[in-house]
């Protein structure tokens, strides 16, 4: 009896994850918007800089990274928006399960719904800018480590703005200082790979940062949420 009333931790995590992914899947159109945005931005670069492939090749890595970052920022605002509006986030805060774990699951769901499609089309974006094929695996590795980091950092900030009504520009202002190191290391790996230098060190730094963020960010996110929604 007790088991059915208080589901286990794993069960609860899975329930939150499944719920969020189902909701995202029902809004497939919204899910595609960041992808479309990234495509548009990337196709603008050649128009602005000229079609010389040497120049485009040089900026390709950084341009794709920044484009993916901006596309993620576009979707960040909506991370907990509907949950705050329909009150389900407050239910989650009252639930017996640790809030940090639940927030971690929500961030994971958001990453799967918004960042994964972007990573999938990243080779296409890079190809549009003539990124050498040999650098492609490094780009994917950098994105696989950098995008969850951005989602985790963004999750904290979104939790902080949970009590406000509009937060679009505010989120961008707050995220910029936090994402500078992420961009530097991800772009550093790409630049090193393009010059034929060893690129494992920046990737390793990104990995270390991701491990730290996976542990700390959900805790910070939960704390931020309690502060921002406590009245």
């Amino acid at each position, binding site marked *: 009896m007790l088991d059915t009333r208080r589901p286990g931790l794993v069960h609860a995590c899975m329930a939150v994850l499944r719920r969020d992914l189902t909701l995202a899947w029902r809004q497939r159109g919204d899910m595609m918007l960041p992808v479309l945005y990234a495509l548009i931005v990337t196709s603008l670069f050649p128009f602005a800089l000229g079609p010389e492939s040497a120049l485009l090749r040089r900026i390709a890595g950084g341009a794709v990274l920044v484009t993916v970052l901006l596309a993620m920022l576009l979707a960040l605002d909506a991370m907990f928006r509907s949950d705050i509006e329909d009150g389900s986030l407050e239910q989650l805060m009252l639930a017996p399960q640790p809030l940090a774990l639940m927030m971690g699951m929500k961030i994971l769901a958001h990453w799967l719904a918004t960042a994964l499609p972007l990573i999938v089309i990243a080779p296409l974006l890079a190809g549009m800018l003539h990124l050498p094929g040999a650098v492609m695996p490094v780009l994917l590795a950098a994105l696989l480590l950098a995008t969850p980091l951005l989602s985790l950092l963004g999750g904290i900030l979104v939790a*902080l*703005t949970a*009590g*406000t009504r*509009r937060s679009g520009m*505010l989120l961008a202002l*707050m995220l910029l*200082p936090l994402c500078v190191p992420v961009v530097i290391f991800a772009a550093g790996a790409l630049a090193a790979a393009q010059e034929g230098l060893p690129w494992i060190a920046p990737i390793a730094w990104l990995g270390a940062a991701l491990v730290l963020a996976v542990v700390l960010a959900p805790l910070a996110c939960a704390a931020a949420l309690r*502060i*921002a929604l406590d009245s």
Partner: protein
Amino acid sequence: MANWIPLWLHKLSSPPVFYRFAGVLRPWAIALAVLLGLVALYGGLVLAPPDYQQGDDYRIIFIHVPSAWMSLFIYGVMGVAAFIALVWRIKLAEVVAMASAPIGAAFTFITLVTGSLWGVRMWGTWWTWDARLTSELVLLFLYLGVIALYHSFEDRRQGARTAAFLALIGIVNVPIVHFSVVWWNTLHQGSTIKLLGPSTIAPGMVWPLLTMMVATKLYYVASLCSRARADLLALESGKDWVRQIAENEVRG
């Protein structure tokens, strides 16, 4: 709860007491700040000899370096106040943290502008992606983020606590940014500019610099008192002591 806090500090954290205390402290702090500032300016602009390499251009140092120190110092104060505000929920700590943010942003802005004006002549460019400059720019964005987050809440106390949390995140962030930009610069092997090389500074330049540093600290105290007083009035506008102040000022 507050057994270990000295009694007077505990008393001081009550808004009306602090309001009066800040009112007394403020004129003294600003008077001393102006006095020391003028002395430092006289020493820096008139008495100090021109630098043998940079001529008179280096005289920007007397405002640039104290401002840069203040931009970091105020962030430290804000971080400590933010921590106290979040852990012990002391209203005064929230006020101090949020009143510090605009002053810190002002000093950071001054640092960036005076640094660019100096750099135009010294390096031939007004901006370079050096670790210190980039960290200072990130610091400005952090300050602006804290201020914007604070003002985006309708409830001021809630806004203060939320922005305090952001300030604490920023404290972790600044060293990381500095370290990553240093690494990034070595990778790009671009600017190898040293802001203040191991050049020996003449003693005639040191004392105005230190005097200016004290003057900016005192200015910060005075401005903090000013802002904290205004914030306390806004926060406690329903209370009797604020009403009394409003009535007394109309008579006086």
